């Protein structure tokens, strides 16, 4: 069975993808080919930016079934409206108006159960794509890419996760920023959450939100501080007071930030930073052993 690790942050821009890619590189050297990185930030997937030479092995369109009401068979009894938890169905009897609002519909299928007059059919609509890549240096990466305008992030993340290889020993999920539904979906079935934080006041505030969420879903977690040297000591003090595991500390480097901006971070970490990731991998391998 695979061990699943989510890399989340609360605050955006703390370095989730940087950490995810460095862990992928560092870990693959330890365990060989059975690790996979999955970019769950379906609104703005960015992991593939760092692997421009990667070959797309598979691409799948993900469909959402949205009900359509046939006005000729509809009796305007409103049973479907009562069943719909999301207020997605508009029925106005005297003008014979019957429509399903696509952006409100969650495709739960309740209206089909409610309708006794066979007036509802489901029509497939694409919500995005799931793609699988293999890079030149043998890394396996998957990403979900939401169709612009679709609000079905959570559904797409669910479908993306269903397509992860069973052969992977370790799966790294690069989570979206924030602490809302797509993040909950990303972390909910994982075994461990790495929270990437930055040592600023804003960073501390969002770190606390993310920790609250992780505790709520009852998952073990540890924190990596990225861009250390910036900001102040408040994040460190908080972690110490709360007894939270600090997995590693990555010093801020202007040079590295420059490489990131050019999309060139794979295998570019300095020896010192590589050492930090090696230690993180060692700590997490320890967690995995306890889990096995």
């Amino acid at each position, binding site marked *: 069975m695979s061990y699943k690790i989510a890399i989340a942050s609360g605050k955006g821009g703390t370095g989730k993808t940087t950490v995810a890619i460095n862990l992928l590189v560092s870990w693959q050297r330890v365990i060989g080919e059975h690790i996979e990185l999955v970019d769950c930030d379906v609104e703005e997937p960015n992991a593939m930016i760092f692997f421009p030479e990667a070959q797309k092995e598979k691409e799948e369109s993900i469909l959402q079934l949205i009900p359509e009401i046939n006005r000729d068979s509809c009796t305007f009894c409103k049973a479907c409206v009562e069943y719909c938890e999301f207020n*997605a169905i508009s029925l106005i009897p*005297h003008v014979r108006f019957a429509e399903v609002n696509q952006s409100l519909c969650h495709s739960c299928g309740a209206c089909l159960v409610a309708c006794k007059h066979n007036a509802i059919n489901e029509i497939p609509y694409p919500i995005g794509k799931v793609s699988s890549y293999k890079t030149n240096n043998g890394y396996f990466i998957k990403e979900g890419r939401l169709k612009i305008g679709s609000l079905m992030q959570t559904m797409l993340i669910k479908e993306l996760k269903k397509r992860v290889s069973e052969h992977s020993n370790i799966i790294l999920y690069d989570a979206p920023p924030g602490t809302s539904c797509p993040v909950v979906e990303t972390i909910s079935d994982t075994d461990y959450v790495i929270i990437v934080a930055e040592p600023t006041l804003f960073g501390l505030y969002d770190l606390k939100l993310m920790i609250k969420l992780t505790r709520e879903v009852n998952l073990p977690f540890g924190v990596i501080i990225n861009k250390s040297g910036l900001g102040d000591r408040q994040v460190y003090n908080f972690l110490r007071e709360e007894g939270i595991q600090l997995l590693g500390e990555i010093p801020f480097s202007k040079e590295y930030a420059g490489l990131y901006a050019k999309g060139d971070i794979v295998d570019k970490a300095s020896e010192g930073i590589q050492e930090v990731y090696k230690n993180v991998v060692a700590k997490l391998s320890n967690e995995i052993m306890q889990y096995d």
Partner: protein
Amino acid sequence: MKTLISASENKVEALFDKRFGRAAWFCIYDEISGAIEFVENENVNASNGAGSKAAETVIAHDVKKVISGDFGPKAKELLEKFEIQMVIIQDDSLTIERIITKLRK
């Protein structure tokens, strides 16, 4: 012709509510008969789709003009489909009575 005004309470002295789908009451004023009716907004606390439900209320009551502070995209889409005039007022210190008086002029 009927006009719907988003209202905070079910009386003409009540303040106008700038929120359309989240107003507690809808005041429907019939310009021809002068009749004033208050309809409770059942979806005031709905987690989704309050705007489109409010627009349905408008259409179901044969209203041709809506006065509110703003209209969300889903409400707007439905109201446009039925060619209902949307009037935006930004002053929420106005009472329903005051707005109706303005309509009468």
